[in-house]
């Protein structure tokens, strides 16, 4: 397990490094002069030159990359243009709100998806299986921003059951939760379908396995076979899938935050694009990417811990 964990950790570090390289390459390839963009049209050439030196733009490419790389690993993502505050700090301020949204989305998808998948696998071929099947495909297909807008239209504008905008009063957990319902549903609804299908498919596969036949031949009760012998194996690919799902929920969160006017990293990036605040955009992209890689790492380690075949690997 230790060796597996170290290997997986090393891989995560390598992926983060390559991702940083890619991001740096993108920044470097921007047409135009970042200093000019940052200072606006009224800046003098001397001011631009000073900023260029300050930003290290006069150095050779590989030195620029090395500085970027080292600084990024140390958590220094540069300063944003408008208020000159550290990018990392600004992003971190917005992160909890986005994380709350994603945790909410995951809660929906796990709480509904796993039982639905299990249930339809056991009752496969029946009416319920078919209805849940169509439902799953439908929610997977419809993009989250359409779900968000239609949910807003139905539950906030027409029915007026739930609040339309904002994240709720600071400090008032209840109000914040009420404000979280619709956005997190928009983020998580598609994943209810994904997880239901994944759990159903892997349950069906596991239930066909010879060792399940052995368990039946020993007269073990059906409940024990379904939950103890089958689900423990069928859940493994779902855990991996959830890790991937976080990435997509990070994407959906951007839309949910804009539609419901919630604070968060997505809203931050969107506003930064409109104000051409490049360091903030790239910084936020890097933070969410690292977050995603980290979550995948955790998901793989959890799977490794749950699966003795992986756990005992040298």
């Amino acid at each position, binding site marked *: 397990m230790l060796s597996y964990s170290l290997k997986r950790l090393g891989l995560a570090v390598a992926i983060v490094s390559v991702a940083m390289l890619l991001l740096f390459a993108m920044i470097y390839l921007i047409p135009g002069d970042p200093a000019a963009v940052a200072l606006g049209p009224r800046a003098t050439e001397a001011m631009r030159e000073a900023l260029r030196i300050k930003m290290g733009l006069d150095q050779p490419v590989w030195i620029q990359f090395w500085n970027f790389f080292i600084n990024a690993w140390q958590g220094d993502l540069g300063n944003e243009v408008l208020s000159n505050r550290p990018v990392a700090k600004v992003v971190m301020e917005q992160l909890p709100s986005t994380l709350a949204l994603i945790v909410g989305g995951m809660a929906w998808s796990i709480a509904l998806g796993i039982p639905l998948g299990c249930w339809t696998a056991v009752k496969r*071929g029946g009416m319920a299986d078919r209805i849940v099947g169509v439902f799953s495909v439908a929610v997977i297909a419809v993009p989250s921003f359409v779900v968000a807008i239609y949910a807003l239209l139905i539950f906030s504008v027409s029915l007026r059951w739930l609040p339309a905008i904002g994240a709720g009063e600071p400090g008032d957990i209840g109000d914040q939760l009420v404000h979280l319902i619709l956005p997190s549903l928009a983020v998580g609804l598609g994943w209810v379908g994904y997880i239901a299908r994944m759990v159903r498919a892997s349950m069906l596969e596991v239930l066909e*396995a*010879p*060792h399940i*036949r*052995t*368990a*039946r*031949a*020993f*007269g*073990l*009760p*059906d409940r*024990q076979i379904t939950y*103890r*012998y089958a689900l*423990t*194996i069928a859940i493994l690919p779902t855990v991996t899938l959830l890790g991937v799902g976080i990435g997509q929920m990070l994407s959906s969160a951007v839309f949910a935050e804009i539609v419901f006017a919630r604070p968060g990293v997505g809203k931050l990036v969107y506003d930064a694009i409109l104000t051409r605040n490049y360091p903030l955009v790239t910084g936020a992209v890097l933070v969410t990417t690292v977050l995603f890689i980290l979550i995948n790492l955790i998901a793989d380690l959890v799977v490794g811990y*749950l*699966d*003795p*075949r992986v756990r*005992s690997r040298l």
Partner: protein
Amino acid sequence: MNVLGIRNLNVTFGTEGGPLRALRNVSFDVPRHRIVGVVGESGCGKSTLINAILGLLADNGQVESGQILFEERDLTQMDSLEMQAMRGSRISTVFQDPMGALNPVISVGKQMLHIQYRSDLGRTEKNARSVEMLRRVRIPDPKSALSRYPHEFSGGMKQRIAIAMAMMMEPVLLIADEPTTALDATLEVATIELLQELQAQIGCSVLFISHHLGVIAELCDDVVVMYAGEVVERGTTRQIFHDPLHPYTERLLRCDPAGQSTRTRHLPTIPGEIPDLRDPPKGCIFADRCDRRETICETAPPEVEMGGHRACCHRVKP
């Protein structure tokens, strides 16, 4: 006294090409304390037979008629809970594939513990029993084996663990489905010897399914020969191997290169293929591959008995 009596068993599967009659009028007995071998090639219905006995037929399979009498009770009439109570306590099974037969994410000890769920013993006693069983199947260091997972054992050891699990509840009937097919020859004989030894100690009956004639000849007391879903011949092992009555049995024995003690460059074969069981022939099931076919073979042959030796062939006269 019979532990298991199969009476005119008919099993049908619903398929896209129409109903497939996988077992037709299958009858035979498994007497107490005896090892009965079922021998047959692919498509003869061996696995369907096991699944029918265990009540584990696939969703599209159905027992059309007939009885499976186990200790005088008809298993085909039992509901799923009654069947579940039979499996693992009165009837145990060892399957062909030792690699897949054990759950990969549950330790061997836990799986052996779960099997004993009906027992009143405490956890420590149950584990002690598991260790005792593993010791009897010669698993080295049985105590530590309990906390290990299936993938940590070799194929031969996994099959021995599966046998230990099957024998642990001291069943009345052990069903062994090609338990040695996946093993190397040297492991195969060791496994057969182990099965013989445990059967004598526990005193159960064994239904041993195999396509390997040598293994059947060595291990079994009685033999049932199946072809394309029918029992074509049954009797004691000596009767079947020394004095086969049915042309299929006779030719199957001749085909086995192990039976040819003198070296030959031309081995006997049985040309042709088994009939489509969605539309089985009206008469003798083996007729179209039989070299002694006559006109009468277009009608179904009766089962003829001679001193406990039975065969379904028109040529056999009592």
